[in-house]
């Protein structure tokens, strides 16, 4: 209700009622007038109202906020385009006599970024399939953007680069996914993802930490439905096996799978090698190989407080 006649500087001409210079003018929003309350004289008219067009209540329909115009901006990734797109018409008037839409211009808004946006969409799709959180998706997007701008991997399929970026992001966040898990949600082969992975590390001049057996335990065990004790036992077994160098040269995934097998066979929840192999993405012969290596020292490998359902000497020997 403040009168706009009080400007910031004294140079602004003060709008005031000629008869009542001290009177505070009242703004009438609906008519756009400024009215003197003393005598009712309309002092200023056609005052532009800068308030909002409609009322918004933030609780209801949070997705459709009418006071926002346009999509949320993604300045980090897109370079902030402010272009306008004409959408497809909805009413009957937007189609001409043959049924084609009259206004056909849905031109690309920024062709240079189009590939990048497609890749982001693909990344989000892939990440959704394995329920990756938003922070990994953001990291992946950033990596992709860096790689894309560098153009050193320009010839490679964008999907391959996106998959490799996803792999690297998971690794950098400390929750690595195996290549096979990434393959499962991507159309690219493991070989190509591996190649792109190495190229990206070189291009961005970064490196990633080595994977360990413990990184995968919680995921594999919960996918198998194993209780926490078994998971902890398997983690312990795998760690000890690696420390004692019982499994030189074996991939950490295989060792983890073998440890899970041993722990589950010693507990009430026995899982077969095939089941574990399906979850972990290793062949059951591989599990057998690694199991044979850790079997001789099984008694040392179990944690001290483990409750055996099947004692150590009755563990299956393959």
């Amino acid at each position, binding site marked *: 209700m403040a009168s706009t006649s009080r400007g910031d500087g004294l140079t602004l001409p003060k709008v005031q009622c000629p008869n009542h210079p001290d009177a505070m003018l009242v703004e009438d929003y609906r008519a756009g007038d400024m009215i003197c309350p003393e005598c009712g004289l309309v002092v200023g008219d056609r005052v532009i109202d800068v308030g909002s067009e409609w009322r918004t209540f933030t609780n209801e329909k949070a997705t459709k906020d009418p006071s926002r115009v346009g999509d949320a901006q993604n300045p980090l990734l897109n370079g902030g385009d402010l272009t306008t797109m004409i959408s497809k018409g909805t009413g009957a008037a937007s189609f001409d006599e043959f049924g084609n839409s009259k206004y056909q211009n849905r031109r690309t808004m920024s062709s240079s970024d189009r590939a990048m946006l497609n890749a982001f969409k693909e990344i989000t799709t892939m990440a959704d399939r394995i329920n990756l959180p938003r922070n990994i998706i953001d990291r992946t997007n950033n990596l992709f953007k860096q790689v894309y701008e560098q153009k050193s991997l320009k010839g490679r399929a964008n999907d391959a680069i996106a998959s490799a970026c996803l792999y690297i992001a998971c690794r950098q966040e400390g929750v690595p996914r195996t290549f096979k898990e990434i393959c499962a949600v991507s159309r690219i082969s493991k070989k190509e993802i591996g190649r792109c992975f190495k190229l990206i590390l070189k291009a961005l001049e970064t*490196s990633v930490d080595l994977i360990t057996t413990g990184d995968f335990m919680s995921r594999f065990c919960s996918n198998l439905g194993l209780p926490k004790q078994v998971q902890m036992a398997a983690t312990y077994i795998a760690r000890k096996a690696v420390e004692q160098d019982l499994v030189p040269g074996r991939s950490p995934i295989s060792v983890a799978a073998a440890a899970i097998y041993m722990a589950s066979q010693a507990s009430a929840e026995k899982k077969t090698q095939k089941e574990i192999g399906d979850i972990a993405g290793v062949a059951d012969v591989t599990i057998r190989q690694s199991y044979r290596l850790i079997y001789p020292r099984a008694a040392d490998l179990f944690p001290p407080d483990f409750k055996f359902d099947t004692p150590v000497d009755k563990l299956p020997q393959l």
Partner: protein
Amino acid sequence: MEQNNSLPPFQGIVLPSVKGAMTPGMPIFSPMMPYGSGLTPQPVTNTNSLSLLEEQQRQQQQQASSQQAGVPGGLGQTPQLYHSQTVTTTTLPGNTPLYTATPLTPMTPITPATPASESSGIVPQLQNIVSTVNLGCKLDLKTIALRARNAEYNPKAKMWAHSSYKACCFGSENQSRLAARKYARVVQKLGFPAKFLDFKIQNMVGSCDVKFPIRLEGLVLTHQQFSSYEPELFPGLIYRMIKPRIVLLIFVSGKVVLTGAKVRGEIYEAFENIYPILKGFRKTT
């Protein structure tokens, strides 16, 4: 001048003014080294034997100190070896001329005379050589395939011809040149005007065994710049040495495969470079 064992700063050089002994056999090699300016990784020598390498280091040290008083930034222009050696105690009084290197010339690569205590008695065996030769004329492969016989050559060297001009040959060294000549002869006899131009060896592969198991995880941690170890992708560690430009595949068992060499000496040199590093990552159990 830094005297600590910690990793040197990015452009910095670990000046070998440390008097104390470093961990024997454990080269401190900065992973922060700028990519591509790295030179051959150098071993730590605990011995007091003054090798050529140490002499040259001292030269650089003197030069460095004459330049800038050891400020790391100032030394960024003359890429130096990362040697964390315990170089010693005895300074050679004045008989090492100052190494005059202009800031822009990279230091000449040092091939150290390996101190006696460090030399490995192992020599990599060459497994394969790939070379190309330009026969200078179009070859009709069908005719050659029908009429040439490979049995009369050294069976370890076989040839394979492109349809125009060049031929590749696999096999062992020195025999490959011979084999290429023989092949050119055969092609000549078949009626093509073959010439023997540009015989060039493209690639040489060697392999050897260090006879002890290796801790690959440790190696990849310290030599991140050069190593790539992805057990999911390949069971061996891929080490890309910059000087000489060789790729080594290092396995847990201790077997090493070296490839990418153009001359035999590069294979030997690369192996001599990597051997002390591998000794530092020997598995103790």
